[in-house]
């Protein structure tokens, strides 16, 4: 089976050591995590992990089952890029004189929809959000003009379907021989929250 980018979304308890528990499941199988983001979710007290890896569907499915075995994980999902709306954020620190002197750079930043975060005499910090390729392109362009510092955040993603993960979860149950028809009762009670 062909490898492609998969975004794994986990709902977990917000307990100490969760990152270690989750990352161990990948490292044990020598799978590289390309990006990892943790944040609160739409449900209070429940954490959301967004993990990006490049693997085959079979491997991703098995991984998700192993992750769900963790006592503190409520649910694991995996999606291909076309099922998701996803973003990565980047910060660029550019020397102030470059912006002042090179009109091209200013155009470039406009073109990529970069926003100014901080302006100082010596440098200016811009921020953009978008897909990896766009950020990479801008980084490459800016690299030609003394980019002082650059950082890109982890992928964050939500699914395209209007109903959100809660309905997706029921769909999963239909198409896949899953372990449970009735989903986790806690998530079920959060109907209104999950239908975004």
């Amino acid at each position, binding site marked *: 089976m062909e490898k492609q980018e998969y975004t794994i979304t986990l709902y977990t308890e917000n307990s100490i050591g969760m990152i270690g528990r989750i990352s161990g499941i990948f490292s044990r199988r020598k799978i590289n995590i390309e990006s990892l983001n943790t944040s609160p979710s739409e449900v209070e007290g429940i954490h959301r992990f967004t993990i990006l890896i490049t693997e085959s569907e079979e491997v991703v499915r*098995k991984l998700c089952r192993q992750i769900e075995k963790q006592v503190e994980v409520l649910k694991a999902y995996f999606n291909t890029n076309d099922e998701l709306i996803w973003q990565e954020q980047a910060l660029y620190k550019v020397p102030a004189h470059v912006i002042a002197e090179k009109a091209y750079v200013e155009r470039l930043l406009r073109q990529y929809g970069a926003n100014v975060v901080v302006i100082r005499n010596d440098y200016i910090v811009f921020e953009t959000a978008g897909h990896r390729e766009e950020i990479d392109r801008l980084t490459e362009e800016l690299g030609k003009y003394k980019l002082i510092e650059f950082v890109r955040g982890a992928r964050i993603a939500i699914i395209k379907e209007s109903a959100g993960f809660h309905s997706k979860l029921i769909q999963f149950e239909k198409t896949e021989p899953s372990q449970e028809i009735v989903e986790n009762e806690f998530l079920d009670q959060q109907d209104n929250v999950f239908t975004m």
Partner: protein
Amino acid sequence: MSTLEKTEKEQAAPATMQQLSGSQAVLEALIHEGVDTIFGYPGGAIMPIYDALYDYNDKLTHILVRHEQGGIHAAQGYARTSGRVGVAFATSGPGATNLVTGLADAMIDSNPIVCITGQVFASLLGTDAFQETDVINITTPVTKWNYQVTDATEIPSVLAKAFYIASTGRPGPVLIDITKNAQLQLFDYHGYEFCNHIRSYRPKPIVRNEYIEQAAQLINEAKKPFVIFGQGIILGKAEQEFKTFIEKGGFPAATTVMGLSALETDHPQHVGMLGMHGNYAPNVMTNECDVLIAIGMRFDDRVTGRLDKYAKQAKVVHLDIDPAEIDKNVKATVPVWGDCKETLPLLTDLINQVDHSKWLQQFRELEKEEIKEVIYDELNPTSEVLTMGEVINVLNELTGGNAVIVTDVGQHQMVTCRYAKFNSSKSNVTSGGLGTMGFGLPAAIGAWYGAPERDVVAIIGDGGIQMTIQELGTIMQFGAKVKILILNNEFLGMVRQWQQLFHDRRYSFVNITSPDFVAVAKGYYIDGNKISERKDLRDALKTMLDHDGSYLLEVMVGKENNVFPMVAQGTSVSEIRLK
């Protein structure tokens, strides 16, 4: 009784609200969970718990092992014969790291274990304090769950959760690390509440009827159905349900190493053991059957051999409580998620009563070949030296198949699994998944505490016994009536066999010398005997079994005997070699 002791006693008695120390709360939790035996070893960071234990001596039996690894293996043995949660105590640092092998063993073999480790004061965490190790991070991959307690108020609920997680679903080891300050801390104790729900934990998948129906249909259409079963039957306490199922369907049934004793060896539909050193018929027939019904087993590589040539002709029905096992190694045509205690009766209702005796007869034909080529000579050797198989065979005759058989790891383990007779469930205690040498002796001690009314025979090689021989001290002090049968071939036999077969007889460090085991036992005040001749075998085994108390019998066996049949690594189960 001093006033102080009296107050402590009163405090220990259950009441609606009282002040307890964290340590007392730990012991109260154990009592509520029905624990009667703890295997442990004290040390600095767990001293408050041991101090509290001093007052709980009448309610909790503590067995002082000689090494923490022995403690956890004993807890495993206890869990395996009693069907209950095994409990081990250890101190921080080296005490806790010594548990790791046992945790890994319990994890892969799904043993319900709760380990309680002491930890340095919370204020010292992360400072490289004396006997501090990051036990939680060290044990995360080898525990079903672990948790560090730094505040005594958490102890009742955390221990309730620990027992719940360890014993439900697919069982496994849980480790609770308790800092010394939490053990000492006094808090308002409101009684013990059992845990029966964790929102992020689903012990049992909900049974789906459509898959039961699909499985039944597949099974009913089968001409050559074949059942393979594992420890899931024992863990699910579904031995009776399983027997009803195979008897109604008339299926031949073969066991994994871990499934041994779930179905009595003499059952007419029991066709032997699967796997690398399993029986000829079930291995060959795996690639002949049309529907393979796998119950409570996980298709370990030692069972499947080469996966791309494993049961490719068959449709696979896989019953398992752990969803992650379905499709992990072998793709299931119909996955039957759930506890086999629930799914088997549902399936039994839907399957037809069929006579598969002709199909079963094919297994028996192959068995005859194995008897001719392997078994007969193993049990009736013409050579002067004893074989492991004949020792087990005489043991069977003397115990009638009623003993608990504990093994270590290696040739003696495979021979025992092949030839030992089991009449009842929970009679086979062995390190299956992890293959932990040194498991046998401590596990046998625990197995005896788990089933003290039964004969417990520990069959161990000359290599493995030397890994945990210190536990003879535990037997000496507490009197577990374990019968120790050392099968001594003066080699690390399994490795030697591989070196012979696959490494051109280049015997590299497999030649192991042994102390005078009988003298060592004598040093521990344990009676023993050593034999090497056939004429002495029966009497020596009988003396061992009849002895009131522990006994060590060393039997010298053929040095370069091999275990056959064998599915060599990287070959298919149907390519099993008889010699």
